[in-house]
């Protein structure tokens, strides 16, 4: 049987890689991809805890569903803003967006 610890460490790894993507990529779309990886790590956490500790209860599943919905909405909003920025400036690189520095 797989110990719960494996899942949690796997999830922590995925979360960290997502965080790395957020921190190092220049491109706004890539940063969003990093966020998606982090949210997936959360879902692995939730389902692993559910399976190993709280299985018959459905609360964790509701939580996972809510996270999925929020992730979808967040992706829609984020990508809409990115497309809007691209229309203005033809760039989606966060690094180049330097109008707002001071």
């Amino acid at each position, binding site marked *: *049987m*797989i*110990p*719960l*610890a*494996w*899942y949690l*460490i*796997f999830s*922590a*790894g*995925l*979360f*960290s*890689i997502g965080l*790395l*993507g957020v*921190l*190092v*990529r220049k*491109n706004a*779309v*890539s940063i*969003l*991809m*990093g966020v*998606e*990886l982090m949210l*997936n790590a959360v*879902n*692995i956490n939730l*389902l692993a805890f559910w399976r190993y*500790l709280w*299985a*018959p209860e*459905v*609360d964790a*599943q*509701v939580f996972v569903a*809510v996270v*999925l*919905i*929020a*992730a*979808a*909405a*967040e*992706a*829609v*909003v984020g*990508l*809409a*803003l*990115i*497309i*809007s920025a*691209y229309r203005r400036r*033809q*760039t989606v*690189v966060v690094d180049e967006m330097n109008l707002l520095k001071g």
Partner: protein
Amino acid sequence: MSAFQIVFLLIALLTLFSALMVVFARKTIHSAFWLILALFGVAATFATLAASFFVVIQVAVYIGAIAILIIFTVMLTRRSMEESGDQLLPGWGWAALVVLIVFGGLVFMLLQWQGIFQPPQVLTAGGENLENLGMALVMPDRYVIPFEVASVLLVAAMIGAIYVAGDHKKRS
């Protein structure tokens, strides 16, 4: 080591490798394809957790909707993406160090707790109990408020996204 464990390790390694490729791929579109593979890996992980409903949802929502949306965006904003050059910020080595510390900290914290070596719960024939999940989502004594609020959130996000991403030059 049982076969099940080996399967899990393979899935985990594949997912983590794809995730790393999402971060380090040179072209954004390649990142997006690696992201799809990573999301499949997560779906397979859900399968090892006997959460078949969420395997389907993961494929439908994450891969079918979010990843495809990301690929569309990458293609729509192609000109700026094709500009080659380093996709990474200059000081990425330091960021990697920070992230390693975060990972180490998380694992250290988790290992403090004895409960993580527990065996899994025995699932009854009902498995993940989808009927209960459905009931919980619409019962006033359970999760009806989050359920309704989620729908408001989705509608608002959609309306706002349409406005913001719309082409306003054509309109006026």
